[in-house]
């Protein structure tokens, strides 16, 4: 038996990692992922980073999942739709 629960977007979130992007004039050249480190004697800081791999990006895309895609597509297609909407359908 496997158990799961969901309730819309009600699940609590927590900082899991930060992605740092490095680049020059021609765009992003390198990215690293850092996990937050809870310092027992001070404020939290970002731990040493790891270079981002394709596998990491694939997992990230999978976990962001359909909710992210939905938002992306809704925005993209809505704008596309508006752009190509024939003038005859404009509301007076």
């Amino acid at each position: 038996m496997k158990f799961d629960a969901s309730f819309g977007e009600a699940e609590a979130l927590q900082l899991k990692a930060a992605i740092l992007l490095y680049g020059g004039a021609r765009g992003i050249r390198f990215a690293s992922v850092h996990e937050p480190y809870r310092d027992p004697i001070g404020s939290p800081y970002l731990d040493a980073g790891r270079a981002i791999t394709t596998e990491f990006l694939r997992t990230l895309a999978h976990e962001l999942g359909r909710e992210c895609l939905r938002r992306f597509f809704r925005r993209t297609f809505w704008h596309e739709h508006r752009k190509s909407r024939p003038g005859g359908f404009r509301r007076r």
Partner: protein
Amino acid sequence: MAPGAGLEIPRFAAACLDPFRPSASDSGAFTLARNLLLAGIGDADDWRESNSDPVSFMRRILIKEGAQFNKHAIDSVAHTSIVFGMHPTTGGWREREEVNPNRVFLTVEATHISVVYLRATFDLLGRIDVRLPVTFYRMLLDSVREWILCYDESAAEPYIEYRIECYEEAKASGESEEGLEAPQTLEAARGHWLAKRYQPLSPRQLRASVSSIQPDSLERRILDSTVALLALSHNRRWTRPEWNFWDECFPDGSYTIPFTVLAFHEEDIVCEALQSDEEDWLNGGEESSPAFFTVMDPNDISSIRSAFEDFRHFLSIMEALGKLLALLPGADLLEVEN
């Protein structure tokens, strides 16, 4: 370039690692959590252990409910995915505006299902009394009818009709009978123990027959478990929702994976029908709907209580069926390919 001997490590605010909930994301989750507590499902310790997070709390009480039952026995019937939430299926997903906030589901879907070939059990029981196999079979079907979705001879009927039609059409078109394979009949699949001449024993006759069997024998344990399963299934009624409600809840669900297959032998028409249906289901690319679900109104404590009572009763029947299947010769587990 940064000035100085080295870069200072940037620091976060002290509370940045604490869990948080985006504003306007509650959507009734706290109301449900409160009403679960008021309904006596979960307690203050569960809430504390869940860090006051309603979704963790829901997950925690679901695991706690499941822990009251024999997991091994339930897994003998089917490996299941149990989901508690506003989305009625494991992989299900809806637009926010399509979600009804007054409906929370407890759904159960199978990821592995069992298959049992009953002929071996019929042979075992038939040697004691020729009427025991049909009595056992009727009790088994009656026990699972309401609560546990099984693939049995009745599910195979449309396929059998289709096979007969194909066979008749081919014959009518002039194909030689030697080249045609006649579909197996249900009577042939059932075997002689379920022939019409053997009528089921009455409850009094059954009690007398069972009491004459040695208490620790396999036959006696099978019959005792079947009688216990039947009694348990009659303790609470569950009415499968009407088709229109089913359609409303699972508009994309075109098939349902059963928990177990009740066949007669490995090459019978029930297995053949299942194989054909399975190909249709899995190649169709459609969503499945759960084999068991209950719905509750998160604002109504009695509705929550009733849904959980149904859920517990369902698990208790799965457990009792699992204990019975573990005794039957010829039970196996199949993986569902998704």
